[in-house]
C-alpha cells in the first residue's frame, strides 16, 4: 500500500495548451479520492499522468516514496479501469485477468489462485471461459475490475468507469466499488463528472475546473462550505441559487431590497458593496413569515420532493421541499433561511467571503 502525492504537476500540450496548471495534492494511503469536474477540466489528464499514459510536463508525481515521473506504467505498481473497459476482445475472461501477471512472469499456479480469488470476490466465476463480447456491460465492468484486482497494485485508478452503464446498474456498481475498496483497502483515485458518484464514493473530494483544483475536502465539507462559486454550483443537485446582493453590514445582506442575516460573513466588508449570495434549494424553508418572497412560475415533481421554480430579486430561484409541505398551486412563497446556510461569494474573484 502507498499514498500518492502530486507536487505542482503540469501538462502542457503541443501548441502551448496548458491542460493541467500546477496541481498539488496529497492522497493518503488507503483512501478513496475522487476527482470531479466538468469535461475539459483536466481531471482525466491528471489521472493519466499518474498512470504514466501521459508524459508529465512539470512537477513531480510520487507513489509511496518513489518519484514515478520517468517510470513505465507497468512498473508503477498501479492498475487502471477504463471507461470502455478496454478488455482484450480475443481473450477469455480468465486470460484477460491473467495477462498482466503472465507478462510479469508470475508462476502459473499463483496466477490461477489470484484470478480465482478475484473472480470469487466479483462473482464472475461462472463465466471465466467466456469472451468479453458474450458479457453484459455490468459483467464487463466486473472483469475490468478483476483485471485490476489480480495485480494487487499499490493504487487503483478509475477513469469514469461507470459512464457506459445504464442508470440502475450504475448505482449498483457504485456501491460495489465502494465496498470493494473498503475491503481491499487500496488507495484509489477515481475520475468522474457525476457529482453524485463523487459525493457518495469519496473520502477525499477534489473539485477541478480549468486545469486547477477548486477545492479539496471531505464530501460534507465541500458541500457545507464551498470555497468558490464554481464549487457551490457544481456540487449539489439542483444547483445552489446564486443571487446578486449588497452588503448591509452587521452580519446582514440585502437581496432586491429584502434583508437577510448571515452567520458566516467576512469582517470588514464595505457597506453597500456588491456581493453574491448563495442559497441551496434544499436549505430554504417556505412558511407564513419569511424574510424573502418569491414568485412561483412552475413546479417540478420528483416524487418525494417538489422543485418550485420562480424569481427572487430578479434572478432565477429554485426551492426544494418535501412533497405536500407547500401547496402545489402556490403563486407566492414566503421563504426563511437559517443564517448558517447562507454562502457569500466575491463577485470578482468568485471566492467565498466567509469568516477567516
Amino acid at each position, binding site marked *: 500500500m502507498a499514498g500518492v502525492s502530486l507536487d505542482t504537476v503540469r501538462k502542457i500540450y503541443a501548441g502551448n495548451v496548458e491542460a493541467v496548471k500546477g496541481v498539488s495534492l496529497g492522497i493518503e494511503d488507503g483512501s478513496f479520492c475522487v476527482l470531479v469536474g466538468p469535461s475539459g477540466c483536466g481531471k482525466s489528464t491528471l489521472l493519466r499522468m499518474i*498512470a*504514466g*499514459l501521459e508524459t508529465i510536463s512539470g512537477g513531480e508525481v510520487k507513489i509511496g516514496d518513489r518519484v514515478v515521473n520517468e517510470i*513505465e*506504467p*507497468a*512498473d508503477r505498481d*498501479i*492498475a*487502471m479501469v*477504463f*471507461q*470502455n473497459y*478496454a*478488455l*482484450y*476482445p*480475443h481473450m477469455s475472461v480468465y486470460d484477460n485477468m491473467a*495477462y*498482466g501477471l503472465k*507478462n*510479469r512472469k508470475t508462476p502459473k499456479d499463483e496466477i490461477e489462485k489470484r484470478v480465482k480469488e478475484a473472480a470469487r470476490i466479483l462473482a464472475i466465476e461462472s463465466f471465466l471461459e467466456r*469472451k*468479453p*463480447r458474450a458479457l453484459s456491460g455490468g459483467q464487463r465492468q466486473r472483469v475490468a475490475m478483476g*483485471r485490476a484486482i489480480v495485480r494487487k497494485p499499490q493504487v487503483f485508478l478509475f477513469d469514469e468507469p461507470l459512464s457506459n452503464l445504464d442508470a440502475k446498474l450504475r448505482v449498483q456498481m457504485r456501491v460495489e466499488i465502494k465496498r470493494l475498496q473498503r475491503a481491499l483497502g487500496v488507495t484509489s483515485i477515481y475520475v468522474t463528472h457525476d457529482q453524485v458518484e463523487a459525493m457518495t464514493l469519496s473520502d477525499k473530494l477534489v473539485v477541478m475546473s480549468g486545469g486547477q483544483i477548486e477545492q479539496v475536502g471531505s464530501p460534507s465539507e465541500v458541500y457545507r462550505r464551498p470555497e468558490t462559486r464554481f464549487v457551490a454550483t457544481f456540487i449539489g443537485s439542483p444547483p445552489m441559487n446564486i443571487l446578486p446582493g449588497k452588503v448591509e453590514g452587521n452580519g446582514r445582506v440585502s437581496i432586491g431590497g429584502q434583508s437577510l442575516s448571515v452567520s458566516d460573513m467576512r469582517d470588514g466588508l464595505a457597506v453597500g458593496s456588491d456581493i453574491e449570495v448563495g442559497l441551496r434549494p434544499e436549505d430554504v424553508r417556505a412558511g407564513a413569515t419569511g424574510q424573502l418572497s418569491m414568485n412561483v412560475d412552475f413546479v417540478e415533481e420528483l416524487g418525494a420532493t417538489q422543485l418550485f421554480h420562480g424569481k427572487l430579486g430578479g434572478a432565477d430561484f429554485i426551492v426544494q421541499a418535501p412533497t405536500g409541505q407547500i401547496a402545489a398551486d402556490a403563486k407566492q412563497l414566503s421563504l426563511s433561511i437559517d443564517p448558517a446556510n447562507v454562502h457569500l461569494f466575491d463577485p470578482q474573484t468568485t471566492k467565498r467571503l466567509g469568516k477567516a
Partner: protein
Amino acid sequence: MVENRRYRNILAYLVLAVGVLIVAFPVYLAILASTFDAATIINGNMPLVPGDQAGENYYRTLFIGASRSTREPVSMMMLNSFIMAMGIAIGKILISILSAYAVVYYKFPLRRTAFWIIFITLMLPVEVRIYPTYKIVADLGLLDTYTGLILPLIASATGTLLFRQFFMTIPDELLEASKIDGAGAFRFFKDTLLPLSVTTMAALFVIQFIYGWNQYLWPLLITTKDNMQTIVIGIKKMLTTQDALTEWQIAMTTAVLAMVPPVFVVIFMQRFFVKGLVETEK
C-alpha cells in the same frame, strides 16, 4: 400487386440466368475441351457433352507438358505459380502489417511523410515502373529466380493502407491497458494486434494470392528458363506455336488447372474469415 411482383421476380431471374450463362459458358467450354483429343477440337464441331480423353489429357498436361512450346510439365509451372503467389501474399501481409503498425503506433519524425510516400506508390503499379524495376532486378542478378518474381510485387501500399485503417479503429485504451499490463511494443503487436487482424489478413491473403497467381507481364519479362515459367505464361506459350498445330486440348487442360488453386483459396479462406468476422469485436 402479388401477381406483379411474381412477374418481376421471373424477369429478374431470367436476366441473372442469362448473365450466368454468358460468364459460365466459356469456362464450361474450356472444361469440355480438356476432355477431347486435338482433332475433335480443331475440326470445329466439338460436342457439348464431355468426351473420353480427360484422363489422358490431364496426365499428359500435368506430367509431360505440351510437346513443342513449353517443354515442361504443367505441374512444374503450377509449383512456380504457387510459390510466387504464396510469396507475394505472405510477404505482402508481413510488410504491410509491420509498416502499418509503425505508421499508426509510433511517433517518429516525418511519420506523415513516410505514410504519404507509401501512399503514393499506389499510383505507380508494376506496369508503370517496370523498366527501372527490371533494371534493378537484373543488376541484382535476380532474373530467373523466385526472389526476382516475388520481391518487386510485394512493394505496394494496398495492404499497408488496409491495415492502417483497421488499426485506427482499435481503441487507444487497448494499447494503454496493455502498457499497464506490462506488454511492450512487440508484445502488444503479437498478443493483441495480430489476433485481432486475422480477418483482415485472410482478406488480404485472398486478394494477393489471386493477384500473384494471375501475374502475366512481370514473369514474362524476367523468366527465360523453361523451369521458371508460371502457368499463365505457359498457357500463352502453348497458344502461339510457330510451325505446328496448337495443342488445344493441352492448353485448355492447363487453363482449367490454372483455375483450381485460386478457387480453393477463396473457398477455404472464405470460411476462415467469416469465422473471424463473427469472433472479433472491438
